[in-house]
């Protein structure tokens, strides 16, 4: 790891100032579980680390509108096992616990989880071309190693840029963020221009022709909290994560499904609200309200679920090794929705 200057501010404003002083060379560090790894591989080479662990952002608070505010520095483990999260947002607990391992969840923070970078192997290997890593020769050549390389874990949606070219097919690896997308969480940030909020759907971005940027944060901005809206879909939800082995692997495809069901008549239930988000398939958690709209007002049946799956996968494109993900994703959606509607057990 290259040497760096280490700063440890105690307030949000001071942290933002420290970072803004050298926006290209400084990085925040929270749990460090992703950043330190990348620094060891020389993928990230900050010359200043601003340790934010002493900032007062480690609480979970109830909001007046019935929602919940998760501090950026609350660990993933404390969030997943928090009684209010378990009770009102079980989908979020399940998604967090499906990710990483116990020791990592003990260290990883909610803020850091939003920023974790892709697991594309070419991104980690500085001898391979990578447009996402590339910002100068010290970080290896430009190009995309995965596009014509081994791309089993890569994206099938949202990969084309406006000019029809493909610059990066990496996926966002977070499980937590898939649940946050389904729950319509809101990210709170503080920066040199003050505070603002970003809906989770606008927080991460598609690669376009600037895959270096994973999100829409401006230089110097710090995430202070994640707000969960009052409706946690706590009765009917499922997080289904499919991977190459049963534990401790990133998702090939994951689905966060959440439903509200109403008894419409004696013959059964009808879906009155639906949320559907996917992980492992794109540069950001993948959600389309059109797919959800196909569920509302319908009975929860595999056919109905299948139509929503087709809509969410509309435009999907494989790159060879990952083409199987298109069919896998459709089946995963049907299964996750069936689990959420309690038509199928969760294992």
């Amino acid at each position, binding site marked *: 790891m290259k040497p760096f200057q280490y700063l440890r501010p105690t307030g949000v404003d001071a942290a933002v100032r420290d970072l803004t002083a050298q926006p290209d060379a400084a990085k925040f*560090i929270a749990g460090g*579980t992703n950043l330190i790894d990348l620094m060891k591989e020389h993928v990230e080479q900050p010359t200043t680390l601003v340790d934010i662990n002493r900032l007062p952002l480690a609480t979970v608070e109830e909001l007046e509108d019935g929602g919940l505010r998760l501090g950026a520095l609350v660990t993933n483990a404390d969030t997943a096992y928090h009684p209010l999260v378990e009770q009102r947002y079980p989908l979020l607990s399940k998604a967090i616990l499906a990710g990483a391992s*116990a020791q990592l969840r003990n*260290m990883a923070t909610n803020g850091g989880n939003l920023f974790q970078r892709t697991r594309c192997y070419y991104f980690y290997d500085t001898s391979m071309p990578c447009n996402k890593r590339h910002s100068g020769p010290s970080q290896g050549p430009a190009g995309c190693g995965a596009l014509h390389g081994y791309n089993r874990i890569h994206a099938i949606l949202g990969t084309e840029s406006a000019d029809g070219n493909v610059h990066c097919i990496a996926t966002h690896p977070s499980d937590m963020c898939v649940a946050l997308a389904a729950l319509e969480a809101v990210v709170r940030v503080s920066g040199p221009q003050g505070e603002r909020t970003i809906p989770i759907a606008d927080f991460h971005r598609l690669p376009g022709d600037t895959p270096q940027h994973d999100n829409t944060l401006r230089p110097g901005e710090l995430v202070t909290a994640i707000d969960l809206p009052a409706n946690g879909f706590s009765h009917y939800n499922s997080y289904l994560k499919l991977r190459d082995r049963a534990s*401790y692997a990133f998702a090939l495809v994951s689905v966060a499904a959440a439903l509200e069901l109403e008894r419409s008549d004696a013959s059964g239930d009808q879906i009155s609200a639906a949320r559907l988000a996917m992980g492992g398939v794109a540069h950001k958690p993948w959600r389309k309200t059109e797919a959800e709209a196909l569920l509302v007002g319908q009975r929860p049946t595999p056919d109905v679920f299948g139509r929503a799956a087709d809509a969410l996968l509309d435009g999907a494109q494989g790159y060879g090794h990952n083409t199987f993900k298109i069919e896998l994703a459709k089946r995963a959606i049907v299964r996750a929705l069936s689990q959420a509607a309690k038509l199928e057990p969760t294992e």
Partner: protein
Amino acid sequence: MQIQVTVNGKTRKSEVEDRTLLVHYLRDQLHLTGTHVGCDTSSCGACTVHVDGVAVKSCTLLAAQADGCAVTTIEGMAIQDSPTTSQLHPLQEGFKECHGLQCGFCTPGMIMTAADLLKHNPNPSEAEIREALEGNICRCTGYHNIVKAIQWAATHSTKPEPNQQEEPVVADEHLFTNDVTTGEVVETH
């Protein structure tokens, strides 16, 4: 930079480089070599220690991040029963009883992870144990005897908690863990 860390009950004040990883601080500066480095990429779990009572991977953690914290390593797990002797922790006993180790490289990390599990869940099922161990890799045992060892510990635990800060513990004949006294601030370089 200077850090102060309470390691296995003993407070240490040390000068470290900003980029020193906790595992290197423990092994190279404190000579507590029970904590192993397997993968160095937070995958294998061999480097698991407790920081403020929870299991974390010390290979992806700056020593600076542990400044002001209490750290427990495998050397701090044995329970002191007299000024000069100590008893193995039930988990250590369990690994011995059930052949929970072959080469032993993964064992310290397995024990530290299992200790965290037993704190929250004193009677875990086999499935719960296997799930809790997802971040610990063993190339020798096939895990069966590790699961049994943890079950053994769960049923033989008199004191499931490793000593944290209250009383220093003596685990071995080690240069640094042997001569522990409470509250003393020791300079190490």
